């Protein structure tokens, strides 16, 4: 029952002359009772709809909407449909990473460009069983790709030096990744004032020792440090689509409108386990935003998620792609994107601010499909 609804109910009861004796109080949940334990096995189906209406268009208007392309043991795409008044509407794919967008091109003079994309997908929780080693196999060439640098994630210089310092004395890939995960938690922090999900310029983060950021910064730094010690790792760019089933408001979408719920996670490839889920940025988010206080890492609320996000995550999130350095097809304005997670648009005046859905404008809604 919603708190407000409950209070209304309380008011009704008071009309029955009970109010004089009903104590006014609020229920609490102790931090040590909070459980965060995502486990695979239950698939959930969602539908996400992105509607872009480019305000005050000039010249030819172009829109790119991310289409989910990740299919794995935790996510299955179930198809996309789109509509709008664009002259051209078709999916286009990035060559290197396979990231996909719905490309919509509107004729000059189209006063109210609108395009809407709806994607369905299934998703489930992830949790690695560390007691069960598997003979993880993957294409060596593909794994090599996930150790390579990107424009914003170099793997040499200060990144390499830092990664080597962190993993000094560690011999196995699990030990090295564990050390980097712990270092990320100890040194970075969630900075709510960062726009969007951050930039992900990890070299600058290390050089300036400014470790405040969001998932696009913190998980990128994690991925870069892991890659720098030769272990395959990748960022996965997506969006939260539902509240956390474990009651963590910081780890879920707050409402059906998810226009600002973008979130990126990470994976590392471990020899005995394959691709393993990781999300140190969300540990920091719980510490900074779960309560009105900035919690320390040893706080029970943070401790409850810290080990679970090393090897798992909750299936209340849609993965779009794993792409970096994305050149939008047919774009005439702006440069490459560090990653593709937000709707994009350009008019004759330039590229729209993808982090400002209200002025762009776009809305993203998500709903769970039941039955």
């Amino acid at each position, binding site marked *: 029952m919603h708190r407000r609804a409950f209070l209304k109910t309380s008011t009704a009861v008071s009309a029955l002359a009970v109010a004089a004796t009903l104590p*006014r*109080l*609020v*229920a609490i949940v102790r931090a*040590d009772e909070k459980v965060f334990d995502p486990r695979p096995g239950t698939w959930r189906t969602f539908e996400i709809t992105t509607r872009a209406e480019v305000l005050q268009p000039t010249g030819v208007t172009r829109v790119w909407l991310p289409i989910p392309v990740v299919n794995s043991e935790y996510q299955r795409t179930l198809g996309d449909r789109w509509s709008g008044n664009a002259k051209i509407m078709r999916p286009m794919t990035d060559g290197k990473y396979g990231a996909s967008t719905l490309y919509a091109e509107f004729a000059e003079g189209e006063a109210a460009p609108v395009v809407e994309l709806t994607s369905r997908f299934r998703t489930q929780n992830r949790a690695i069983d560390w007691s069960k080693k598997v003979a993880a196999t993957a294409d060596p060439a593909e794994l090599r790709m996930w150790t390579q640098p990107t424009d914003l994630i170099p793997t040499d210089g200060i990144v390499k030096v830092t990664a080597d310092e962190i993993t000094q004395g560690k011999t196995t890939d699990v030990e090295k990744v564990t050390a980097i995960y712990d270092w990320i938690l100890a040194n970075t922090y969630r900075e709510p004032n960062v726009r969007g999900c951050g930039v992900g310029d990890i070299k600058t983060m290390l050089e300036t020792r400014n470790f405040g950021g969001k998932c696009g910064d913190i998980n990128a730094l994690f991925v870069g440090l892991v890659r720098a010690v030769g272990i395959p790792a990748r960022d996965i760019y997506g969006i939260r689509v539902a509240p956390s089933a474990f*009651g963590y408001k910081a780890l879920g979408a707050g409402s059906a409108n998810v226009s600002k719920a973008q979130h990126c996670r990470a994976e590392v490839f471990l020899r005995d386990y394959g691709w393993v889920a990781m999300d140190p940025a969300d540990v920091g988010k719980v510490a900074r935003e779960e309560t009105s*206080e900035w919690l320390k890492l040893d706080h029970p609320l943070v401790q409850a998620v810290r080990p679970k996000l090393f090897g798992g995550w909750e299936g209340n999130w849609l993965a779009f792609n794993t792409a970096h350095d994305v050149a939008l097809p047919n774009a005439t304005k702006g440069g490459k994107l560090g990653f593709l997670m937000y709707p994009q648009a350009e008019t004759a005046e330039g590229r729209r601010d993808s982090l400002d859905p209200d002025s762009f404008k776009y809305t993203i809604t998500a709903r769970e499909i039941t039955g």
Partner: protein
Amino acid sequence: MTLTTEHRRWTAFVALVAVCATFALPRAAHTEPTRFLPWTDAPPPSVVLNDLAGRPTPVAEYRGRVVLVSFWATWCEFCREQMLAMKQLRQRLAGRPFEIVAVNFGESPTRVREYVKSLSVDFPVVLDPNQDAVKAWRVRVLPVSFVVDADGRPRYSVLGEFDWASDEAVKTITELLR
């Protein structure tokens, strides 16, 4: 169906108030029921917390004095009036062997200090960052208060907001002072 923590929380909350209403309804027609629920469990383990100056302060062990232990939070809207009422209670029992200890529910010293200052609270306020006292006293709602006698034994609990400046409060505590 899997119940989330939030579900459980609100289910417990609704159940609690339903229980209160169940007890309250039949008596309401005759007389106001007492809000002082007799303590029937074993005494909780001893807990010492820091006050706002960082001084270790026992939550309930003040032998020779009756203690009102009250759990609260700055975000608990029902706690505010109660704080002010407890100030009045302290004034009404001035000079008597009586103490109030307000246990904050896991908030930062800065926030608590500002709040306490704004209300000019003049009794001990202790911080419970790890919820040690919350666990020891099995606190489930805020505010909740416990009256501990001069021998250190919990005697009553009071769930929810209560007018501690009331005659009933003064009478109940005064009886323990004898």
